[in-house]
């Protein structure tokens, strides 16, 4: 499934980022790389917000749809 399919407080592990061009590497560099554990904080309107070991990141919805995850 993709990141936007998660509800608030769901946890998941990142499998990979399937698109997004230039932004892909930035996501990796910010710690959203394969295997990273991520918690969904907010997914209602606009960009989603995830927590990565306490660090909050806002990610545009379009880009978040390219992030393939395994729900835990």
């Amino acid at each position, binding site marked *: 499934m993709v990141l936007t399919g998660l509800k608030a407080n769901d946890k998941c592990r990142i499998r990979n980022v399937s698109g997004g061009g230039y932004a892909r*590497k930035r996501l990796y560099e910010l710690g959203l790389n394969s295997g990273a554990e991520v918690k969904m904080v907010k997914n209602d309107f606009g960009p989603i917000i995830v927590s990565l070991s306490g660090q909050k990141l806002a*990610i545009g919805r379009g880009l978040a749809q390219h992030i393939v995850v395994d729900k835990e």
Partner: protein
Amino acid sequence: MYTIALVGNPNSGKTTLFNVLTGSNQHVGNWPGVTVEKKEGSFKHKGAIYNVVDLPGTYSLGAYSEDELIARDFVIKGSPDVVINVVDASNIDRNLYLTTQLLEMGANVVVALNMMDEATNKKIEVDIQELSKDLGVPVIPTVAAKKSGIEDLIEGTINAITNRSNNVEFSYGPSIDENVNRIADVLKGMGFNYPVKWLALKALEGDKEILSLIDKKEGIGDILESTKSDGIDYELDIVDKRYSFINSIIKKGVKKPTEEIVTLTDKIDKILTSRLLGLPIFGLIMYLVFQLTFLVGSDFLGGYVETFIGFIGELIASGLESISAPDWVISFLIEGAIGGVGAVLVFVPLIMVLYFFLAILEDTGYMSRAAYIMDGIMRAVGLHGKTFISMIVGFGCNVPGIMATRTLENKKDRMIAILINPFMSCGARLPIYLVFIAAFFPDHGGLALFIIYAVGIAFALLFGKIFSKTLFKGESSHFIMELPPYRMPKAPVVLRDMWEKVWDFVKRAGTVIFAVVTILWILSVFPLGVEPYSQDSLLGKIGEFIAPLFAPAGFGSWQASVSLFAGIAAKEAVVAILGMVYAGVSEGTELVTAIQAAFTPLSAVSFLVMTLLYTPCAAVIATVKKETNSYKWAIFMAVYPFILAWVMAVLVFQVGSLLGF
């Protein structure tokens, strides 16, 4: 003298540490060839002087943005004796990513493990010795905001100058390592200023800067070509490997709670970023900022400055008369210098209060939330959410506002953000509004100010939409932004930030505005023999020549025309000129009375619309030229707002007149 570079993520407390280290021994310049701010300072320790360079805050040292290029160029080419890497201990995993890159570059790194107090609050425990051993460099715990650990950090840094310790060898797994070595072998002896292994790694990562430097070299192209078919995604794999190195270190040296604790930030964010309340709260905050600016700045503080400037003026005037100085000297000093520059300086308290509140918003971490909340609206008009941050910076001054667009990596997003930034009303335009508000709407000052700024935002958004549909079509780049934890604003940071900007304003009054005022004073007394500041002077003739253009907008007087003309040099000059031509020695009240006589409420509104929207000042146009590297866009920046402003001002006046205002 030794040079120390400060490197760290945004929000890692790097700037706070820089301030603690260097105190007031700072100066701000620009990096050669670019407009990125370069902050330098120094401190003394046991008789030796240490020069500290604060590099731009970055997450990585790739070629992603100009900031990152500057930081990495300085680490390599600036050959600092030590690089202090400021690491946010409460967010250690991601912060160490930058550390791994510094180690790859072979920099002489000392890690300042900052924000130890926040880490403790989050129940994160760090084994400093273990971490230091695994990274192969000194690690020193600090809390820069509370000035703790600073002595140790200075000792450790000085010690590192002579005892270089970075000697950890990285492994990225056999296949990457092999290719790094192959490329490095070819590059060896070619006389590069960079470590060859780092060059090789960057080339494999697909770093365009480095590739353009080496891919023409013999043998390199073949190796790079051969790596394309081996099924490895080098770009992302190398990032993954850095993170596995970090994870192995974290496992050994850092203890973290398995469950995330709900922090105060989470609770505040529930409200401030909520779908229903986020936008109204943001509006309310901005409204309060302007309301308070008006209340504290003009009613409370403003009076003193005004009285003081009036007092100085009288003192100088009577002094000059007593030594029977020539009339022209008195005229220049009193009507020109003090009248013009004084009219601008009167607004220092207001500017101070506005900058104070903007600095607080910035320091608390609210700005990134504002960008988050606005992303929807911004995207609806074809803009990137981050554009909003550059817009808010523009409230202070459009020059840094335009520079702040550098965080937008997509050319289209950036161009639009640059072209709409001047609609964000800057601090220099504030005095104009204040004079007119004091003259016509004194009872609703805060509201009037809020409306002016809101109209500016509305035009910025409108033109964002227009540009994204016409000049710059295409997709906006993706939105990725960190939402740092809320922090209590720290008085020294806020005050320093405010002071730097206020001082800049005062300096401009003393230099640019003084120069403009001098030129206009000369124009006002020639041809010799005319009544100074009269319609017969050169100044009056110029005004008279332009005036018909503004007649349909209701302010076709030579005085208003000449002030708008001067405003293209610098916006503060508008009030300075009005002060000179209307009031002589222009302490506020006198100028306000003159304005009341010369304008009607309706023509005042159309004049305000004109000053809000028309051609930005020379400094902004020069910045647009620098940032876009094109005269075409600089000219465009000067022309289209003027046409827009004129049309809007005429519309306001004509429609208003029809409605009987």
